[in-house]
C-alpha cells in the first residue's frame, strides 16, 4: 500500500489532509444552500417582460424591482443565499405589479376610446333619424 509507506507524522501528509477536509467542507456547504440561480433568472425575465409590456423604468415598481435584483445578485455573490432568494422573489413580484398596472391602464384607455366612439355613433344615429323622418 503506498499510503502505508508514508509516515503519519510527515508534514506533507498533514497538508494533504487539511486540503482534503477543506475541499469536502466547501463542497458540502454548496450542496446545503445552493445559489438561487433559477429565481434570479425568473426575476430577470419578469423585469424584461414588464419592460416589453411598456412599463416605464422610472415607475416606482420598476425602480424597486431593478434595485432588488441588483441587491439579490450581490447577495448571491456574497453567498448570502437566503437574502438573495428573498430579494429575487420580491423583485419578480414588483415587476409583475408594474406589468399588470401598465396593462390595466392600456385596457382602460381602450375602453374609454370605444365608449367615446359609441357615443359619437349614437349621436350620428339620433341626428340621421329625425332628418330622415322630415324628408319629403
Amino acid at each position: 500500500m503506498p499510503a502505508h509507506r508514508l509516515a503519519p507524522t510527515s508534514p506533507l501528509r498533514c497538508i494533504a489532509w487539511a486540503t482534503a477536509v477543506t475541499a469536502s467542507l466547501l463542497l458540502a456547504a454548496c450542496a446545503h444552500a445552493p445559489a438561487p440561480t433559477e429565481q434570479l433568472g425568473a426575476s430577470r425575465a419578469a423585469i424584461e417582460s414588464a419592460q416589453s409590456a411598456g412599463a416605464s423604468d422610472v415607475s416606482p415598481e420598476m425602480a424597486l424591482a431593478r434595485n432588488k435584483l441588483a441587491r439579490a445578485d450581490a447577495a448571491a455573490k456574497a453567498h448570502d443565499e437566503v437574502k438573495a432568494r428573498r430579494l429575487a422573489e420580491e423583485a419578480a413580484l414588483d415587476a409583475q405589479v408594474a406589468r399588470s398596472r401598465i396593462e390595466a391602464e392600456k385596457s382602460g384607455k381602450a375602453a374609454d376610446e370605444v365608449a367615446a366612439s359609441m357615443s359619437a355613433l349614437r349621436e350620428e344615429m339620433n341626428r340621421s333619424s329625425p332628418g330622415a323622418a322630415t324628408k319629403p
Partner: protein
Amino acid sequence: MTPSRRKTTIVPLALLALAACSTTPLPNAYLDNAHRTYDQASSNGDVDRYASGELARARNALAQADNAWTAKRDQEETSHLAYLAQQDAQIAMNIAAKRAADARVETASAERERLRADIRTRQAQDAERNAQSAQRQAQSAQAQAQFAQTQAQDAQARAALEASRANRLQNELTTLQAKPTDHGIVVILQDVLFDVGHASLREGAQSRIDQLAAVLKNHPERRVLVQGYTDSTGTAALNMALSRARAEAVRLALIQRGVSSDRVDAHGYGEERPVATNATQSGRTQNRRVEVVFSDEHGQFASTP
C-alpha cells in the same frame, strides 16, 4: 384610480425604508399592510369576477405569512412573505381592472356593430321610402295627365255635340223657313194663321206650331221670344192689343205642347217695324205677322229686339 394606485405603491417603499433602518415595529407592519391590501382586493367585485385565481394566490401567500408570524415569530421571514402576499393582492386588482376594461371593450364593440347595422338598415329604409315617394309622385303625375286628357276629350265631345245640335237646329228650322238675322234665327208665321182682326189660331196653323214645339223640345237650351206685328190699318192702340194677343196665342199654343213657360216670352209691337209698305195689299199681308226669335244655345238673345 391613479392616486390610490400610486399610494399603494408608495406604501411598500416607505415600509422598505423603515425596514432598512431595522426599526420594524411589533406586531409586523408588513403583515398589517398585506391584510389591508388583501381585504381591499377581496371586497372588489371586479377581482371576484375576473381575477379569482390571482386572489387565491394572494390568500395562500398571506396564510404563509400569518403562519410565519404566529408559529415562528420570524420577523424577517414574515415581512418577506407579507410583502409577497401584498404584491400578489395588488397584482390581482390590476389584472381584474384590465380584464374588466377588456370586457367593456368587447361589449361596446358588439354594441357598436349592432348600432352600425341599425344605421345601415335605417338608411336602406329611407332609400326605399324615397323611392316609393318618387313612384307615388310619378303615378300622381300620370293620373293628372290622364285626367287632363279626359277633360280635353270631354270638351271636344261637348263642342262636337253642340256643333251637331246647332247644325240639327239649322236643318230643323229650314223646314220652318227660318232665316238667320242680326238678332238670331227668326221664324216668321204669316197672318194666314189667324183670321183677320182675330187672335185665335186657325186649324191650319196647328202643324206649324207643332213643328216649332218639336224643335224647342229637341233643343232644351234654346228659348224663344214671340213677337206680334200688324199692318197700319185701324188705330195704333187696337193694333198693339191685337199684336200682343196674337203673340200670346202662339206662346200658349207652345206651352200646351209641352214647352216650359219660362222658355217662351211674348210681346206685341202693333204696327211698328213694318217689313214692307202698308200702301199695297201684299205689303200689308207681309206686315201682319208673328216672328219667333230663337236664343243662342245659352238661352241668351243676341240683342234686345
